[in-house]
C-alpha cells in the first residue's frame, strides 16, 4: 500500500484560492500516476519477458511467411500486466507465441496440464486448460479479471508456494 516518501512538494500560488500547479504537474493524467511496485520485479519472469516482448513487438511484417503483423503494443502491455498479476515464484515463465494478427498466446505445459491464455486483444482472452491425464478440458473467456485462473497457475508450480498476501 505505501510508497516511500518521495514526493513532498507541489508548487502552488496564492494560499487563498488559486491553486496553481506547475505545468508538468498541471497535466494530471492519472494514467501514469498510480503504480504499486511489485516486490518480485527482479523475478526471472520479468527478465525473460522483457526481452521476449521486445522481440514480439518488433517482429517484421510477414514473420509467419504470410501477412503476419508484430504483436500490438497494447496487447503486449496488457499481457505484461496480466503476467505481473499471475506471477507465482515457483512457476517458471511461460512461452509466448505470437498470432499472425498481432495477438499473443501465453502457455505452459507442465505437471500434466496444458494451460493456454490466448490474448486475442487487450481485455479479450480465451483461457484453456487441458488435464493431460484425463483429457478434461476447460475453456473460459476473460476480460480483465484473472481470479478464475489463479488456481490453474498454482497447479503448475514445482512445489507448494509460500503465498504472502498484502
Amino acid at each position, binding site marked *: 500500500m505505501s510508497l516511500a516518501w518521495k514526493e513532498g512538494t507541489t508548487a502552488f500560488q496564492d494560499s487563498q484560492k488559486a491553486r496553481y500547479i506547475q505545468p508538468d504537474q498541471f497535466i494530471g493524467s492519472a494514467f501514469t500516476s498510480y503504480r504499486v511496485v511489485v516486490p518480485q520485479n527482479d523475478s526471472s519472469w520479468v527478465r525473460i519477458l522483457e526481452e521476449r516482448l521486445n522481440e514480439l513487438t518488433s*517482429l517484421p511484417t*510477414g*514473420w*509467419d*511467411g*504470410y*501477412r503476419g503483423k508484430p504483436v500490438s503494443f497494447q496487447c503486449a502491455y496488457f499481457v505484461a500486466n496480466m503476467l505481473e498479476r499471475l506471477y507465482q515464484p515457483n512457476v517458471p515463465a511461460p*512461452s509466448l*507465441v*505470437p*498470432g*499472425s*494478427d498481432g*495477438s499473443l*498466446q501465453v*502457455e505452459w*505445459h*507442465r*505437471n*500434466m*496440464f*496444458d494451460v*493456454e491464455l*490466448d490474448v*486475442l*486483444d487487450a481485455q479479450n482472452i480465451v483461457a*484453456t486448460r*487441458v488435464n*493431460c491425464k484425463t483429457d478434461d*478440458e476447460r*475453456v473460459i473467456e476473460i476480460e480483465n479479471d484473472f481470479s478464475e485462473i489463479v488456481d490453474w497457475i498454482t497447479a503448475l508450480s514445482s512445489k507448494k508456494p509460500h503465498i504472502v498476501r498484502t
Partner: protein
Amino acid sequence: MAAQPYDEDDLIDVDILIRRVNPKQHVVFDENTGKKRTSSKLFSPSSGPNDGMSVDIQKLIENDGVNVQDFVSTPTFTGSVFFDVNSARNAGLMVGYDPIVGNPYHGEVWGSSKPNRFTKSQKRALINSSAWLVEIPGVDIGG
C-alpha cells in the same frame, strides 16, 4: 484484406494445403512430453471479421511449375506442415482461394460458424492430420 469466407468447389478432398511454421516463433517446449513441438497457436485463425488461417495451395504452385518446398521456404527459411482439404472439411472448416500480393497461391481456412475462431477440437483435427513438408529437426507437430 482477406476474401469473404467461402468453400471452394475447385478444391477437392485430396488437394494439399501447406501451413508455414516459423521455427523461432511457433515452437514451444512441452515439459509434459519432454519434447519440442509446435504451439496450438500455429493452427489459429486471425481475429479480423473475415480472417481465417493462411495456407499455401499446393496444386496452384505445381500448376505454375514452381518447386513447392522452395516456394514455401522463401524469403525467410521456415518449416512447413501439410494436410489435405478433406481433413479441414471433416473438422467443419471451409477452404478457399485468397491470392495476395507476392503469393498468388495463398488460400484461407475459415471456421464455419465463426470464420475467425476454431474450436480446440478443430485445431486438434488439423494437428492430427498434419505431417512435415519441410521438417524442423527435433520438433513434433503438436498443440
